[in-house]
């Protein structure tokens, strides 16, 4: 099959790149080896771990992916990203100028650029409510309730806690492992369950300003939170959960739908296993684990880092298994004995030139690009920029291809 651009990957970076290409009239295909790490994200997107991320980004060394894009361009592309989320029907809050903070499932406050609308968020370390009632399903496994309530208390919010159950959730508890976010969200897709929850809230919330629930508000449907607000006549906000995250799954689904609606093709469940080149060393096609060969003018590697299997490590070192790209950051040792220190292996990734062309044996391949967490030269956890780098480098590569 023939496309303008084949993107190897199916996660946030691949989807952003694909959507930007598709909405500019390019025929793009994604090779997605299973569901992506978006399913595990809390559905908040970090640009950089600093109160004013753009200012921090301007100071980064040239080896950092953001530095290759340039801070003005990072700002412009951050705007494009917000636009794409909007087109996909994902409503976000936040700005690249100034971070807000979100609460994590274990009650920590984290710097953040964009959040799904309806997630509890703080500006300048302040929440905009003084009292809350937290409703958690009995036996729910995906948030640490006491950490959440104590974090809220510390921020000066009077929080009451109510455990609730619904007949359908009682059945779920027969299975010790499945009292999870997705199960609750599926139950709340049903009108009768939502009404039952609404009446529990009305009965139990007292005079709390805000009702808090784990982010389990609807799996197939997108307006469950708003409907619950109308039914209870309260502001309802969500606490992010452990993975798989309902909001992450919904965000991935929305981006995939948007991409396909624009004419993009997704080869789901395919792993790219080999590639073919012409006499100049340019890539002509890739072949997948399902015996499908995809030809294109341009190829983008967005297979993620270790968890997405974009990078592999063994005792000999780190490699990128598909193209055998050059690797940077594979210093020895790859790990720090102190588990809480930034781990050196997180800085590993494929080596690219200023336009994100992949380098092989020090030479760039003209029609082969890399974007997202497969890139090296930064630490996504310490810098809180995993999603930001995925999005910004994807859009940068897309624009290079469009202008080619």
């Amino acid at each position, binding site marked *: *099959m*023939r496309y303008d651009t084949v993107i190897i990957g199916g996660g946030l970076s691949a989807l952003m790149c694909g959507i930007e290409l598709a909405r500019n009239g390019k025929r793009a295909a994604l090779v997605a*080896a*299973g*569901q*992506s*790490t978006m*399913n*595990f994200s809390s559905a908040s997107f970090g640009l950089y771990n600093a109160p004013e991320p753009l200012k921090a980004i301007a100071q980064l060394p040239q080896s950092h992916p953001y530095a290759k894009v340039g801070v003005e361009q990072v700002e412009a592309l951050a705007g494009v990203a917000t636009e794409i989320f909007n087109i996909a029907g994902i409503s976000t809050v936040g700005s690249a100028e100034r971070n807000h903070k979100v609460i994590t499932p274990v009650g920590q406050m984290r710097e953040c650029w964009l959040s799904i609308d309806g997630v509890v968020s703080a500006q300048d370390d302040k929440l905009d409510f003084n009292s809350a009632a937290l409703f958690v399903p009995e036996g729910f496994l995906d948030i640490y309730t006491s950490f959440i309530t104590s974090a809220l208390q510390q921020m000066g919010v009077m929080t009451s806690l109510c455990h609730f159950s619904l007949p*359908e959730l009682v*059945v*779920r508890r*027969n*299975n010790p*492992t*499945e009292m*999870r976010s*997705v*199960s609750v969200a*599926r139950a709340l897709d049903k009108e009768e369950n939502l009404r039952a929850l609404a009446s529990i809230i009305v009965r139990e919330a007292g005079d709390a300003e805000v009702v808090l629930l784990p982010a389990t508000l609807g799996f*197939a449907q997108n307006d469950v939170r708003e409907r619950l607000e109308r039914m209870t006549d309260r502001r309802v906000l969500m606490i992010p959960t452990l*993975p*798989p995250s309902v909001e992450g*799954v919904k965000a991935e689904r929305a981006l995939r*739908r948007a991409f*396909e609606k624009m004419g993009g*093709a997704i*080869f*789901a*469940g*395919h*792993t790219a296993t080999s590639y073919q080149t012409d006499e100049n060393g340019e890539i002509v096609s890739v072949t*997948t*684990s*399902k*015996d*499908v060969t995809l030809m294109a003018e341009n190829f983008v590697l967005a297979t993620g880092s270790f*968890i*997405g*299997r974009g990078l592999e490590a063994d005792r000999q070192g780190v490699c990128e298994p598909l193209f055998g790209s050059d690797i940077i950051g594979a210093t020895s040792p790859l790990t720090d004995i102190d588990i809480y220190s930034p781990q050196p292996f997180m800085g590993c990734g494929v080596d690219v030139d200023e336009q994100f062309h992949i380098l092989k044996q020090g030479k760039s391949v003209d029609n082969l690009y890399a974007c997202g967490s497969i890139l090296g030269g930064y630490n996504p956890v310490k810098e809180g920029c995993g999603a930001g780098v995925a999005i910004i480098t994807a859009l940068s590569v897309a624009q290079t291809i469009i202008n080619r």
Partner: protein
Amino acid sequence: MKQYSEHNFEQCTKCTVCTVYCPVAAVNPLYPGPKQAGPDGERLRLKGVAYYDPAIEMCLNCKRCEVACPSEVRIGDIIHSARIKHSTKRPGLREFTLANTDLVGSVATVVAPVVNATLGLKPVRKVVEGVMKIDHRRIFPKYAFGTFEGWLKGQRKAQALYAKQLAYFHGCYVNYNNPDLGKAFVKVANALGYGVQLLEKEKCCGVALISNGFVEQAKKQAKTNIKSITKATEQKLKVVATSSTCTFTLRDEYDHLLGLDNSAIRDNIDLATRFIYELLADGNQRLEFKSDAPHLRVAYHSACHMERMGWTKYSIELLKLIPNVELVQLESQCCGIAGTYGFKKENYETSQNIGEPLFKAIEASECDVVSTDCETCKWQIEMSTSKRVLHPIEILASYL
């Protein structure tokens, strides 16, 4: 190729994303979900058979967990293999009847008008439900009067005239229920310059036998098919099937579930839409389409095994090549029938609940017809929506 240990479940990182995309877990809270039934349970089952939980038999073997898995764990295979190994359920008359598509088909096609009329009657279906535990609401596929094999044998001389030849694995559905699909395939193959032959001996691919607990019989039939396909392969004949599930079973389940070595022939077994699309995409082959063909809005449904094979795009792109066909791609989701699963009384509700979002999407698509490469999806969709379902090859043939 990556070398995995014998225990593929070791690749599981416990991310649980498979359970998110499991159609059974979505509607039936009693099902433990693919992670628990598959890799987690397998780890325990290695310790002893006492850890076998019959609840895993609610799995309908759609393999959507495997498509969702980021770590290439063959979750569906793990579940189904455990079931083959440990299930204490013994198949009864119902399972025998549903699984023996060849035997039942051979008898039914001889007296098709009687069978069709009888099974169409509600009181009869009530009796069938009482005796067989096959749900009375389930509508049976009609049997044809005379088999496809019989028809093609009559065409032998005409087919031999074509310079290029292929072998067609028609499957039970084409042979006993819908010979017209087989005839449509022959028409398209002929238009591309291929004569169509039968395999030396074709048996039911065995998918229904496997899922109904007749594994030894499935192996026996699989060996016959492997032998016939090997012979065709030696004669340089491509083996092409119209049914996505037959294709998937021949290529993957023979090895993964029955433990039979099909490596020498696997690559020579192709799906009809893929085979034809690749001929046309090469640019060397062309099809002459009718100039006055009517406009048709087609909604394409990706069957589960089609999705697992990863070949959905071939059918979609092939349909897009037909002038005046307007294609709507339905979001890929299970229709709920899963072969013989949905026929069983105890599965009827689950089956229809799984399919509900798809049925709604089909009604909302404002299509003229639905298209899919799977015959059992066709039965389910025709029973549960207002739309007719055609195989992509039937649509293609009608435009030639």
